[in-house]
């Protein structure tokens, strides 16, 4: 197990390094942040001073080495706009995004798995056909459009739920979260649902496919031949088998939830890192963009690692191989 973890960590480090190259050089190709920062009537001297202040007068590989040196010490550069460390800005906005992504993941699991289970067990039932049609919509409708529709329906027409902001937060277990207050829950519901839509569809399809495959397996027929109740066959024999792939995929999707939250946060004015990123891009605040992308790379790498380890806990077959290794 430890050999496996160390090998995975080495791979992760390499991935992070390569991504830093791509991200840093990629971002530096786009636009000229100086003209965003100096006032329109600034003269040439002002502009040059600004360029020097931002370190943009150096050759780009020099800038990169400087960035790398800072990054190794946990410094991803200062925001051009706020003058604060980019990392600090992102970390400040991160909890809001994490709680949004987490809520969306929970919604996807709580809604998607039961619906997938039902439609997998009764594929010919009209309700199942409805569920499948819904999941196709969930896959194909653009997130921003659904977000606007949700706002229109629940916030504007019905007036049941607020459409912008994070609402009240409270601290539980040392984490400040809107999941701890009623007002916060009311605020997070629509954006979380919006963000979850794609993943609900995914959970439905994964679960349904898994259930249909498992139900045709010999171990189900054998369990029936033993006289085991249908309830136990479904919830123990079948669910235990399909939870492995479903949990793996859903876990891996957490990273993409954080990524997709950029759209949702913008629509619902959710004060998370996605909104910070969009603002940073519009203002060509390169250090913030680079820092955000690096944090995302880290996220994906860590999530992959955690899922691999979880997988080995869930699946006794994997567990045994690792003991042998």
């Amino acid at each position, binding site marked *: 197990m430890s050999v496996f973890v160390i090998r995975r960590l080495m791979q992760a480090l390499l991935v992070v390094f390569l991504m830093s190259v791509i991200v840093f050089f990629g971002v530096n190709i786009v636009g000229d942040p100086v003209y965003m920062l100096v006032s329109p009537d600034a003269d040439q001297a002002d502009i040059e001073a600004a360029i020097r202040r931002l370190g943009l007068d150096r050759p780009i590989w020099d800038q990169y080495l400087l960035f790398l040196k800072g990054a190794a010490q946990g410094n991803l550069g200062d925001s051009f706009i706020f003058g604060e460390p980019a990392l600090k800005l992102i970390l400040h906005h991160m909890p809001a995004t994490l709680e949004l992504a987490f809520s969306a993941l929970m919604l996807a699991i709580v809604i998607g798995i039961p619906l997938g289970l039902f439609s997998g067990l009764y594929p010919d039932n009209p309700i199942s056909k409805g569920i499948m049609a819904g999941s196709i919509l969930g896959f194909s409708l653009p997130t921003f459009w659904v977000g606007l529709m949700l706002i229109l329906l629940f916030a504007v027409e019905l007036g049941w739920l607020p459409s912008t902001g994070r609402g009240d937060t409270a601290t539980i277990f040392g984490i400040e979260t809107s999941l701890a207050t009623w007002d916060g829950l009311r605020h997070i519901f629509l954006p979380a649902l919006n963000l979850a839509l794609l993943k609900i569809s995914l959970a439905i399809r994964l679960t349904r496919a898994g259930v249909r495959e498992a139900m045709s*397996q*010999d*171990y189900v*027929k*054998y*369990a*029936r*031949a*033993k*006289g*085991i*109740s249908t309830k*136990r066959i479904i919830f*123990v*024999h079948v669910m*235990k*088998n399909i939870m*492995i792939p479903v949990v793996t995929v859903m876990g891996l999707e957490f990273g993409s939830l954080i990524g997709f939250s950029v759209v949702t946060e913008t629509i619902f004015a959710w004060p998370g890192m996605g909104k910070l990123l969009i603002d940073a891009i519009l203002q060509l605040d390169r250090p913030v963009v680079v820092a955000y992308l690096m944090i995302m790379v880290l996220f994906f790498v860590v999530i992959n690692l955690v899922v691999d380890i979880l997988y080995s806990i869930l*699946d*006794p*077959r994997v567990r*045994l191989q690792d003991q042998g290794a």
Partner: protein
Amino acid sequence: MTAVLEVAGLKTHFFTHAGVVKAVDGVDFTVNKGEVMGLVGESGSGKSITGFSILGLIDQPGRIVEGSIRFNGDEIANAPEETLKSIRGNRISMIFQDPMMTLNPVLRIDSQMMEAIFAHEKVSKKVAWERSRHALGLVGIPSPEERLKAYPHQLSGGMRQRVSIAIAFLNKPDLIIADEPTTALDVTIQAQIIHEAQKLTRQTGTAMIWITHDLAVVAGLADRISVMYAGRIVEQGLTDDVIDRPLHPYTVGLLGSVPTANKRGERLFQIEGMTPNMLALPEGCAFAPRCRSASAACKAPPPITHIANRDIRCFNPQAQAAAE
């Protein structure tokens, strides 16, 4: 002798898009208390479907269309699901071909054994565990306490099949249907498993239907043999009679394809022709296209006749043909 199971005129058909597959098409047999019946036939002849029909485990698009299945005198063909559930794994249990596929890969042996007890009896966990441990010991599994904690993949193929046998005997059933339980195993293990199963049936007085495509396997195990072809039993009789003096041309062919010591070096006989297409069986005897003894009469379906202590479906029985 009291009959445990009486099957009469059983027909199980599958209504597929391509047509009706008459997987079981008029099967009659009786299994007496403590008796082992060998059900033999080529792949696709309807052996497994016969077994599943008895347990009421035929899924769409199939169903039992006709016939009666009497278990301890009670009719159970198309019985309510609750009745069948209380019989399955309790009064009639089943052993499948490949225990790698039938034992659930993510559940421990103990939970797969104990659930078979809990499904039919209200007992404490401790009692169920103790009974499971005892059952594993009976089928010759060393250190059963540890095996109970194992997952299926941690056991060898032979060990897994012993576990399946232990599960089959857990609730002391009246009948066990063993569907090719040794086909996936190598020959030495196969012999051990057969020995174990035989010992247990003798000790407990459990009747057994042993399904196989290999006559050699049932020759030493079964009291009686039923030979199945294309959904019908074509020859049925005492094992010694069927093995020593087969009457049906198909049985003769099956016996010819069994390797034996005194045929060493000779070319193994193969039954000519293809296994029948179940969607397009001939009008008369289904074996006719492959039969060397076929005559004009065989264009009609052969009825069951009783000759030489045997039930056979053939117009031209092979008197002593295999003796040469």
